[in-house]
């Protein structure tokens, strides 16, 4: 479904250039759930933006559903690291934005219903008419999550979607996300800083090295689904894999330097 071929990204700034990504080769299958981990600043968000077609790679090729990516696609949804809500729109109307944009006005009523369902799911029922600045950080993130789910996309790119949520909400929502993925046969690329979350959710965990972000290892997770965060049945397996991933991330710390600082 998603194919990355020797992809690299270099940012040129006034204070020098930064090599964010280098030589990424990755193939994500249809209906696969891939989680992406790596140290802060290693290029995870950049990688998602490349796949989404928001940024042309400095070199290498990106393809989604067999077509080279040159612009964003309707069937790919992107949940950004920051909530990015439109300040003048109420919660409900922010969630409805993708529907409006793709002109789903015929089924508007159906979608409004779905929006209400999603908002209830994330615990935001009763807040439909509020403006974003009246919400807490985590509430904003949940609105953004609902927005990325409303259009039932084929591919979902999610950049730390649960970072501002409490443990409990996180557990509930990660279970929900697995359910949705199975139901819709969605392909998901999911960035997280929680190793446990990465393991519990993923079919494969992709580990990036710090600057420049290169593939360090791709770990297959063979635990049967559904899996649950927190008190789950496969505690030892998860702990084992987590320890391994932890060790991977801890490698080569000394290299966390921008290119120009060398």
């Amino acid at each position, binding site marked *: 479904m998603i194919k990355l071929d020797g992809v690299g990204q270099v940012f040129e700034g006034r204070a020098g250039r930064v090599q964010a990504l280098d030589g990424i080769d990755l193939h994500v299958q249809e209906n696969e759930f891939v989680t992406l981990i790596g140290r802060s600043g290693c290029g995870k968000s950049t990688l998602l933006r490349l796949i*989404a077609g928001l940024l042309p790679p400095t070199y290498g090729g990106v393809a989604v559903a067999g077509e080279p990516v040159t612009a*964003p696609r309707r069937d790919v949804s992107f949940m*950004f690291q920051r909530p990015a809500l439109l300040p003048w729109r109420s919660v409900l109307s922010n969630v409805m934005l993708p529907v409006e*944009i793709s002109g789903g006005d015929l089924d508007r009523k159906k979608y409004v219903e779905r929006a209400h369902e999603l908002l209830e799911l994330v615990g935001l029922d009763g807040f439909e008419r509020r403006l974003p*600045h009246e919400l807490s950080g985590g509430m904003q993130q949940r609105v953004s999550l609902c927005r990325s789910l409303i259009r039932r996309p084929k591919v979902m790119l999610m950049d730390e979607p649960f970072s501002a949520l409490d443990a409990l909400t996180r557990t509930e929502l990660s279970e929900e996300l697995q359910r949705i993925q199975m139901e819709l046969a969605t392909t998901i690329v999911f960035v997280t800083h929680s190793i446990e979350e990465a393991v519990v959710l993923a079919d494969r965990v992709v580990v990036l090295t710090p600057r420049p972000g290169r593939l360090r290892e791709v770990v297959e997770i063979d635990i049967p689904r559904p899996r649950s965060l927190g008190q789950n049945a496969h505690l030892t397996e998860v702990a084992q894999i987590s320890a391994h991933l932890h060790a991977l991330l801890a490698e080569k710390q000394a290299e966390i330097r921008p290119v120009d600082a060398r």
Partner: protein
Amino acid sequence: MTNRSWLTTSRSAAVLLPILGLVAAIALWWLAIVAFSIESFLLPTPGAVAAKFLEQPGYLLQQTWVSFLETILGFGLAIVAGVPIALLIVRSVILERLVYPLLLAVNAIPKIAIAPLLVVWWGFGQLPKVLMVLLVCFFPIVISTAQGMKSTPAELVELLRSLKAGKAQEFFKLRLIYALPQVFTGLKVAISLAVIGSVIGEFAGATEGLGYVITSSGATADVALAFAAIALLSVMSIILFYGLVLLEHLLLPWAQETR
């Protein structure tokens, strides 16, 4: 923790304070005349101006109405014409680079110098005055709309792009709305200019309107009458300005101002 008092929060203070400001201004004007013993042929007293107004309130209000209509029409036209041009400017760097010099060139023309030209082309009616208003207040609207739209945060633009929004959607669902507070700043600048524009338009080939009153008062060296007209213009300008402020409050409850 902000200091909230009756003066900053109450609704009546929002109306009373501006009026107080005006009264203070008038008092200052009077004081200046007394203090520097300014001759009445240069600057009449507020009293003389008020007396002039009371002499023929109906006539003067009638002229104010004429200028008001021209102002509103021209201002409306400027919005109707200016916003699409701003869209084009933001849409394309190339267009921006081609169009701005042209707009600037037209804008740099002292409008008073071409008022007679407009009359020659469009006669003695309302049209040339409305066009003058349009010319005068066009540029601030274009530039503040364009700058406002350009300052849309990259994050929100990326959001719309990731949703594969078309250019039109990007503009009407995001940029234009995001720019509205800045658009209103432009409108507030433009409305004062619009009022002046109507007067300049009336300086040539008009038989009514406050601009005509000002020129014709020259025929009788009636400085007080000229100032009565100017005072009416000021009042009109203030009312239109606060009308925009009100509209802004109604339309943009989300635009948080910080103090």
